[in-house]
């Protein structure tokens, strides 16, 4: 406990972070929370200027269309649209979502291997060609899954289905062995097959080797994302279930870091604030609104409680308590019910999580805060937490609120998050379509080292029938429809290991982008 023996607000007030000091860029974030762009509680109240400059419509080098707004000097190629013919003879599924560069192969010209989720529930199932073990729930019309893309200098050299017949593959995370942990964001049973859903699956970058077997001991709940700790091998897990989301981790039984080892089981745990039973982290505290978190910059010491029944079915619990801003009966996932009964914390809606390679996990809560009328917690504009596990005692850690806002122009429900190899934080938004100084369109945001968000990319996808026809992207059920897709969320942002190319998806109509530019002009 020596390196965590500080008060809940000790990090900011002491000015001396001691052994638990947050390394840059988080250290920079903490140092400047009281800037002009923040309110008294640390919430950001205005957009920061981007270190990369303003965005403007920019031409896609593959289609000639202005699909994105980017800063000057940046360029991009759109690849692997929904409906495109894949290397396995199938068509690219729609609803592109979480993604990562899981491997770099090739010789003189590196090839980035990306695994990409498709957030589909019931729909037309794909096949993992040549691998019947690559499909999970084949007797029900479960259409979710992942595809694997090999991209060489901005051009797809191969893409194919990597896992199939899973449900609502929202996000996921890289494993420690060049594969992808895909998350089912649901916990409903598929009626036709009686197989349950709401699991994590390990997806091999070689689809022929994928075994679509759920890692049951990672828990059955609406999973959103994972992030693996290379030091301990623990896998941190987020849950996307409004007002009843826990923060979990999985301690694998096997110490071998290889594909399939997670199926040998382990222990699921849920985060608990040390000294606080059933902490409520749904919104900031005010004079009239209770909460266990009061200001941006505040830190909470964390311990972990075991979940003994990770595959328990959903149940009903009643939230009560003096410090509870949202008290009523909730239908909750089984692991949440158990963890909450043991004092575990709850969040609004867990979304993306990403390890920065330097001891910090950045974790999004997309609905942190109150609605615009201030009446309903877990309905706000979102926040970003940073979790730093203790390296001397892995059973504890520190959870720090590093960013929050209640202004929809400043922040509009962060979702997937990533960290560049240089340590800069980027997240994708998924709120109602924001209208800002650059017009209408969903956004990707960067976090400055000073802890303020700025606009990095805006969605500018508007497709006519003539444009789709000219591209040959018509005629298949998966082909995109003409329309205005500026309201579609970005998802799956990730960098290649050199930091020169950032990949990201637009969920609608379903496009992957490879973006490059003068990253070192800013912090990414």
């Amino acid at each position, binding site marked *: 406990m020596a390196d965590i023996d500080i008060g809940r607000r000790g990090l900011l007030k002491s000015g001396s972070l001691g052994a638990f000091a947050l390394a840059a860029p988080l250290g920079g974030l903490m140092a400047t929370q009281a800037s002009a762009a923040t309110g008294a509680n640390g919430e950001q109240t205005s957009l920061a200027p981007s270190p990369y400059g303003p965005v403007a419509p920019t031409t896609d080098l593959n289609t000639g269309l202005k699909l994105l707004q980017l800063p000057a000097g940046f*360029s991009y190629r759109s690849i692997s649209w929904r409906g495109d013919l894949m290397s396995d003879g199938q068509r690219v599924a729609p609803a592109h979502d979480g993604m990562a560069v899981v491997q770099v192969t090739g010789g003189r010209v590196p090839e980035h291997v990306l695994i990409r989720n498709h957030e589909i529930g019931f729909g037309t199932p794909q096949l993992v060609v040549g691998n019947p073990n690559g499909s999970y729930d084949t007797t029900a019309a479960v259409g979710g899954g992942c595809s694997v893309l090999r991209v060489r*200098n*901005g051009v797809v050299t191969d893409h194919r289905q990597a896992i199939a017949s899973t449900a609502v593959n929202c996000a996921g995370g890289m494993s420690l062995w060049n594969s992808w942990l895909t998350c089912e964001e649901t916990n409903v049973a598929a009626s036709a097959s009686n197989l349950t859903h709401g699991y994590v699956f390990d997806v091999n970058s070689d689809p022929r080797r994928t075994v679509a077997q759920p890692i049951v001991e990672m828990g059955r709940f609406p999973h959103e994302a994972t992030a693996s700790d290379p030091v301990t091998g623990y896998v941190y897990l987020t849950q996307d279930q409004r007002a009843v989301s826990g923060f979990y981790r999985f301690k694998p039984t096997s110490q071998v870091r290889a594909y399939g080892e997670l199926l040998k089981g382990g222990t699921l745990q849920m985060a608990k604030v040390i000294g606080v039973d059933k902490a409520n982290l749904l919104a900031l505290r005010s004079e009239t609104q209770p909460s266990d978190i009061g200001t941006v910059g505040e830190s909470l010491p964390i311990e972990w409680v075991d979940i003994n029944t990770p595959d328990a079915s959903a149940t009903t619990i009643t939230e009560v308590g003096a410090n509870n801003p949202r008290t009523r009966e909730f239908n909750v996932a089984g692991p949440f019910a158990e963890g909450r009964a043991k004092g575990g914390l709850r969040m609004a809606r867990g979304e993306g999580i990403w390890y920065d390679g330097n001891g910090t996990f950045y974790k999004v809560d997309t609905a942190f805060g109150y609605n615009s009328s201030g009446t309903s917690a877990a309905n706000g504009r979102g926040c970003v937490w940073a979790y730093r596990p203790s390296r001397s005692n892995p059973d504890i850690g520190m959870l720090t609120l590093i960013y929050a806002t209640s202004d929809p122009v400043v922040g509009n429900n962060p979702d997937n998050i990533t960290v560049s190899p240089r340590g800069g934080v980027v997240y994708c938004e998924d709120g109602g379509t924001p209208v800002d100084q650059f017009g209408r369109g969903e956004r990707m945001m960067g976090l400055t080292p000073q802890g303020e968000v700025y606009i990095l990319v805006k969605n500018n996808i508007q497709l006519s029938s003539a444009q789709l026809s000219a591209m040959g992207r018509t005629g298949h059920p998966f082909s995109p429809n003409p329309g205005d897709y500026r309201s579609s969320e970005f998802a799956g942002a990730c960098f290649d290991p050199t930091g*020169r*190319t950032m990949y990201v998806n637009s969920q609608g109509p379903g496009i992957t982008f490879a973006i490059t*530019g*003068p*990253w*070192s002009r800013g912090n990414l």
Partner: protein
Amino acid sequence: MRKLLSSLALGAAVLAAAPASAVTVIETSAGNGNAAIPFGLTNSQISVDFDIYQTSPISLLFGVEQGDADAYNFDSLVSVFTGVGPQANGLRRLRLSLTDGATFTLGTVTPSFSVAGVQMNAAGNQVDMMFDPAENVAVELGSFDGTNGDFIINRGNIAPGGTFNLSVASAVPEPASWLMLITGFGLLGSVMRRRKAKALLLA
């Protein structure tokens, strides 16, 4: 990924590894984090990759050996790290130069994201490549799948035992000189990605 090789160590390594009948690298000059990585040297092939972090030149002094062909196929992967390194402008221009009477025959120029304009001077010993938008990932010179599309380095009258210098300069011209370069010489052609238009430019 980053291959920081000192010039002397690199030269020595290549000398030790190269077959007796192959063209050799006698000396390499690369500063500011830039690097040259020769890995395919035969009596008819020069394959050298360049890592560019800053806009300072890289040069290699080649020694012609007995048994070398009159011309070498040349290909290269120019990895552009300026966008993540200390200089954030990306690659706007790349210049290949030869000395001692050696000349080029143009090959394919394939930037990862950008579009290239390519021109060669009348003497045939200098090739300028201009990229718009700036390239931040890589440029492939020639083909890695064989000789189709490779540049050709003609050694002219350089006899075995002689030398020539190949240099790569990535200077970013000022806007005025950039404009003058384009309008004064004119573009030989705009080389799109090889997969879209597999173009072999000839002088």
